[in-house]
């Protein structure tokens, strides 16, 4: 596959992520912050997001497993996850967190567990999609091409 084809494939793939609501405009903001002086900015931030999220998801799972569930602590974790997913543009993760917080407020353990599953699902989805996106970018760069700025007309 030559560079031009790879680039259109990447563009289509990226657009689909926006269409499906997996990513939102904040992700575009991150891309705007990337340049020759900071060529790996997006990957770096997203990696931090992955590490942060996985830790939070584990903490939440552990807290839900306790005899006495500390909803305040769980809410704090979910709030954090909501914040970081919002900052990277992981829209569906963010929305799942919003729903989760409502159940934390109600101190509903069963619904909270369901929400955790939902958040995890959205998280692993966006993780998978972004990893694919980064791989596509790498392939273009390896083939001597450059990664084009996505033009989206929302």
């Amino acid at each position, binding site marked *: 596959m030559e560079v031009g084809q790879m680039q259109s494939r990447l563009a289509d793939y990226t657009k689909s992520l926006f269409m499906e609501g997996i990513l939102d405009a*904040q992700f575009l903001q991150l891309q705007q*912050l990337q340049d020759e002086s900071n060529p790996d900015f997006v990957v770096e931030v997203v990696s*931090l997001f992955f590490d942060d999220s996985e830790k939070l998801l584990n903490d939440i799972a552990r807290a839900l497993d306790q005899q006495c569930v500390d909803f305040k602590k769980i809410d704090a974790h979910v709030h954090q996850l909501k914040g970081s997913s919002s900052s990277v543009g992981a829209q569906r993760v963010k929305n799942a967190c919003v729903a989760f917080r409502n159940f934390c407020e109600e101190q509903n353990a069963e619904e909270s567990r369901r929400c955790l599953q939902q958040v995890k699902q959205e998280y692993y989805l966006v993780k998978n999609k972004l990893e694919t996106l980064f791989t596509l970018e790498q392939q273009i760069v390896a083939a001597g091409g450059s990664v084009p700025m996505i033009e989206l007309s929302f």
Partner: protein
Amino acid sequence: MEGNFVVSRRMIDAFDVSPSDSEEAHVLAVDDSLVDRKVIERLLKISSFKVTAVDSGRRALQFLGLDEEKSASVGFDGLKVDLIITDYCMPGMTGYELLKKIKESSTFREIPVVIMSSENVLARIDRCLEEGAEDFIVKPVKLSDVKRLKDYMMREDGVGSESSRGGINKRKLQDCCDLSSSEPSISSSPSSSSSESPSRSPTSSSSAPSIPTPLDSPIRRLKMTTTDLID
């Protein structure tokens, strides 16, 4: 002096200060989230600010030399802070509490403080503005939000815009009626507070805030988004 120099270098390492360039304004960014810190740092640097990013209100106060327990006797003269941007929701000290502490300090209360929050709560925004915050940015923070920060800068070389200078002057006039000079007195070294009366309560400025509301201001933004109070 030798001891002080060593401490300051270690503290500089701990605080992750970007290289010194006297032309750029220096922003102290406070956020407990590592992801957000990385983003805000990049947003600021790309907008030509020098950045120091810390992870708590406590660290911010330490950096400024305001922490009661850990007095940084080292003067960060070369690292004057021109603006503080802080997250609201942080464990330990909230951004609001940090704002109050800064506004209570005769040395630092003139530094503009901007609050960031993911929650678009009117009461919260009001409270922060009343306490003297320049602006309230709803997260996620965008490039356009950061570019606006230049308006709040307090630089003697006239980088700040006229409207913000006017706004700051208005507040000062409410505080100190004897202020006749057109330039707000920003001390480059914290010790020179000759034009300020330490006895003035910083919160008195909140009595009648007649701050102009440009299109981008939080007040305007509030009016545009009153329907989505809950995230």
